[in-house]
């Protein structure tokens, strides 16, 4: 299938809903995090070649060791967060922090409804909601570089000749299923991370660092070049990120948390 990249950029134009005013507080720390326990995998330090390069950037960047969630945050896990932080309920969240599609797959404010999606990745969440969830657990969203670096690891049981970008493009070829499969249902990579490709897109902390267009948008660096023009899958990810705003919620966009190593 040929994907018109431009149409991805067009989500940019989808209008957000009319707003309502509400006051929101920072998520309050909660001692008991219920059943929220996701195994954190240690990602060793290493070098990484970013797909997009600003004109004055080094071609290789160093990523320090960090921890990354073994799988994406599930609906059931996110429900614990919403219960502990009612300002993040579907009916309470201010439009500043999420559009009106937020958690639209749930049956109610604190009710997932469909039991089949409890262990599926939570989607239809804004960057602000993902950011708040990770903060609540004393964690953070991974940076774009961290995520790309960790996601570049090969499937642990891949054939020696298998090409990761082919696997990813195969996923892009299929529509998002009405009911997302559970986490840990696609593949585990050599780092021990599940579903880095093939299940959902994932928010990264600095998704708004992606600037693909040239022109008068830039300060110092001028337009960005791509390190590997053949990596169409990476181009798709970056184009998708560029098209997002922090309030957007998308049915195939979820997240996982990262953490510094103390």
């Amino acid at each position, binding site marked *: 299938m040929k*994907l*018109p990249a*431009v*149409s*991805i*950029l*067009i*989500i*940019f*134009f*989808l*209008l*957000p809903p*009319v*707003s*309502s*005013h*509400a*006051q*929101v*507080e*920072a998520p309050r720390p909660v001692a008991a995090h219920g059943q929220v326990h996701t195994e954190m995998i240690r990602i060793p330090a290493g070098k990484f070649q970013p797909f997009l390069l*600003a004109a*004055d*950037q*080094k071609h290789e*960047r160093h990523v320090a060791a960090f921890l990354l969630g073994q799988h994406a945050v599930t609906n059931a896990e996110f429900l614990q967060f919403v219960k502990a932080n009612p300002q993040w309920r579907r009916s309470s969240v*201010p*439009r*500043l*922090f999420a559009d009106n599609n937020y958690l639209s797959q749930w049956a109610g404010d604190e009710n997932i409804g469909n039991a089949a999606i409890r262990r599926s990745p939570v989607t239809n969440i804004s*960057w*602000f909601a993902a*950011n708040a969830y990770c903060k609540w657990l004393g964690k*953070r969203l991974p940076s774009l570089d961290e995520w790309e670096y960790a996601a570049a690891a090969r499937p642990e049981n891949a054939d020696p000749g298998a090409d990761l970008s082919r696997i990813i493009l195969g996923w*892009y070829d*299929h*529509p*998002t299923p009405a009911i997302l499969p559970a986490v840990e249902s696609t593949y585990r990579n050599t780092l021990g991370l599940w579903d880095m490709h093939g299940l959902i897109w994932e928010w990264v*902390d*600095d998704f*708004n*660092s*992606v*600037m693909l267009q040239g*022109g*008068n*948008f*830039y*300060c*110092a*660096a001028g337009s*960005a070049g791509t390190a590997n023009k053949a990596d169409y899958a990476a181009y798709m990810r970056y184009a998708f990120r560029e098209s997002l*705003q*922090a309030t957007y919620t*998308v*049915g*195939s966009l979820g997240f996982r948390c990262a953490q510094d190593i103390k």
Partner: protein
Amino acid sequence: MKKILTIGAITIGMIASSCHGKQLATNRISCCPPTGTTAPVTIATTLQAQSSIYQLPGKWTDEHNQSLELRDLKGKVRVIAMIFTHCTYACPRLVQDMKAIADSLPAAEKNKVGFVLVSFDAQRDDPAQLARFASQQGLDDHWTLLHGDPRQIRELSMVLNVKYQDAGDNTYTHSNAILILDKQGSVIRSLEGLEAQTSVADNEINRLVNR
């Protein structure tokens, strides 16, 4: 995924057809180049009055080393931009454009409008450096310069819809926008690009001051 693509394709169709007529009434950046201009497009986007950005929690420090929260900016119309003081290219232009707006305000409005610069550079733009910059640039007490931690800076960029990237070596690649906030802190207008739009800003400020 496919759903997004389909929606995208439909949307582009709608936008393409509406580009021939009147300017799109949208609160996103319009795809339609303003008629009659060939220069790089300066986009003045009217943003629908949404929720106040003063809902963002967190303490900032100004150039006088005073601690404040964003909600302390409430009550005045605010003109705000994100910059870093070591920027040699775009940021001086942004500050110049904001100064031009400040200088063009009628006397009756001057004390009802505040100008805010927020730095991307949490490391080097400490309050002392911000004070130096304010003095170099001749910024008077209508200006507030803010230093925050990297988390807060990223969150603020999200509500202002300013894109930026730490390009290494303490330089930042960023989109150039001057935002006009109403007295409650809702982003009312985003002036994007590097061309002074003083009269557009003046009209908007005048409307908001008297609202």
